[in-house]
C-alpha cells in the first residue's frame, strides 16, 4: 500500500480515470468507430465494385472491338467477293459479246460471200446468154447464111462450154 501511496494512487483517482476512459470509449464507439467502419466497408465495397465494373467495361470494350474487327473483315471479304464476281461477270459478258460479234461477223461475211457467188453465177449465166445471142447474131451476119436455129444454138453453146474454162469469170 505504501507503494501506491508513493505513486499517488488511490481509489477515487483510479475510478475517475477508469470512468473517464470508459465514457470516452462509449462515445467514440457510438459516434466514431461504427461510423468509420460503416464508411470503410462502404468505401471498400464501392471500390471493389468500381474495379469490377471497370474490368467488365474493359472486357466489353475488348469484345466490341473484336466484333467490330470481325465485321470489318467480313465486309471487306464480302466486298472483295463482290468485286471478283463483278469482274468475272464483266469478263464473261465481254467474252460473250466478243464471241457473238465474231460469229455475227463471220455469218455476215459468209452470207456476203455466198451472195457474191450467187450474184456472180447469175451474172455469168446472164452474160452467157447475151454472149450466145451476140455470137449468134455476129455469126449469122458473118456467114450470111441462116442455119436452123436449134442446130446453131447447140453449136454455139458447145463452143462456149469449151471456151468457158479459159475465160476469166470475173470479166
Amino acid at each position, binding site marked *: 500500500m505504501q507503494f*501506491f501511496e*508513493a*505513486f*499517488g*494512487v*488511490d481509489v*477515487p*483517482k*483510479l*475510478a*475517475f*480515470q*477508469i470512468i*473517464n*476512459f*470508459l*465514457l*470516452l*470509449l462509449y*462515445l*467514440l*464507439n457510438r*459516434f*466514431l*468507430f461504427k*461510423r*468509420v*467502419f460503416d*464508411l*470503410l466497408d*462502404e*468505401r471498400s*465495397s*464501392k471500390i*471493389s465494385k468500381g*474495379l*469490377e465494373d471497370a*474490368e*467488365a467495361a474493359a*472486357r466489353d470494350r475488348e469484345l466490341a472491338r473484336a466484333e467490330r474487327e470481325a465485321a470489318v473483315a467480313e465486309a471487306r471479304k464480302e466486298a472483295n467477293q463482290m468485286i471478283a464476281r463483278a469482274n468475272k461477270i464483266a469478263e464473261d459478258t465481254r467474252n460473250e459479246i466478243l464471241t457473238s460479234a465474231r460469229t455475227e461477223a463471220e455469218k455476215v461475211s459468209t452470207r456476203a460471200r455466198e451472195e457474191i457467188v450467187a450474184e456472180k453465177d447469175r451474172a455469168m449465166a446472164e452474160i452467157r446468154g447475151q454472149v450466145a445471142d451476140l455470137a449468134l447474131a455476129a455469126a449469122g451476119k458473118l456467114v450470111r447464111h441462116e442455119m436452123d436455129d436449134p442446130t446453131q444454138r447447140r453449136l454455139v453453146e458447145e463452143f462456149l462450154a469449151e471456151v468457158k474454162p479459159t475465160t476469166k469469170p470475173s470479166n
Partner: protein
Amino acid sequence: MAEEEGESLIHIALGGEELFAIGPFVVTNSMIGALLASLLLLAAAWYVTRQSTLIPSRLQGLLELPVEWVAGIVAGSTSRWRGYVALVIGFFLMILVANWLGLLPGVGTIGLRHGEELVPFVRPAAADLNFTLGLAIITFVVFVWWGIRINGPGGYLKELIGEPRYMAPLMFPIHLISELSRLVSLSMRLFGNVFAGEVLIATMLALTTATLFVLPLAFFVPSIFLGLELLFGAVQAIVFALLTMTYITMAIAEHDGGHEPEHDPRDDHGEPDAHPASSPA
C-alpha cells in the same frame, strides 16, 4: 521548469498533483490531462463524423487513418475481433493523444504556485499511475472476461491449473502471477516511459539553461528529446493497444480446436466478396 531551489534543479512529482478539491474529491493535474485528451478526441470524432463523406477530405482521411490502421491489425487477430476492436482503438487513440498532449508547450510549465513549488495545470495523463493502472485494470477485466466467456468459468480455471493435473500446486500460482503480472507490466511500462520522458525533457531543459555558457544548447538539445518523445509516445500507445489485443486473442485462442471451425466460416464469408471479383477474370 527549472527551479533552482537548493540543490535540486528540477521539481519532480511521482504522481499527479492536487490542483483543487470538489468536496472530498481531489482533482489532480493528470485528471485534467486525461480529460483534455478525451475532449480533444471527442472533438476530432465530432469533426470526422459531422461531415464525413465517402470520398474523404484530407483531414478526414488523416483522422480516419489511425482507426483504420488499428482496425486492420485487430481484424487479423481472431474471428471475434468485432467484439474488442473498439477497446483496442480506444486505447491507442487515448494514449496517443494523452502522450502527445504532454509535449505541447505550456503543459507542465503553466500552473498554480503552491508556496515554492509550481503545480502545473496539466500533466500528461500517462505520467500518473492512476491512469495507466486504470487502463490496465480494464484490459485485465476484459481479457479475463473473454477467457471465461469462451471457455466457461470451469474452462478458464482449467487453463490456470495447466495440463498435467498433478502439477497444479506449482502451476496454478505461477499462472495466477503471470496473469496478474500483465496488469503490472502494462501499467508500469506505460507510466515509466511517459514519466521518464517528462523527467528527461525537464532535465535537458534544466541542464542547458543552468549556466549562461551552455544556453545556446537550450534551443535545440531539448528539441531532439521532444522528437524522441513524440516517437515514444506513439510507440507506447500502439504497444499498449496491441498487448491488450494479444491478451484478448490469447484468452480466446486458448480454447482448443472447438473454436477453430469458426475461423473458416468467416474466411468463407469473406471470400464471396472476393470471389465474384476474381472468378470472371
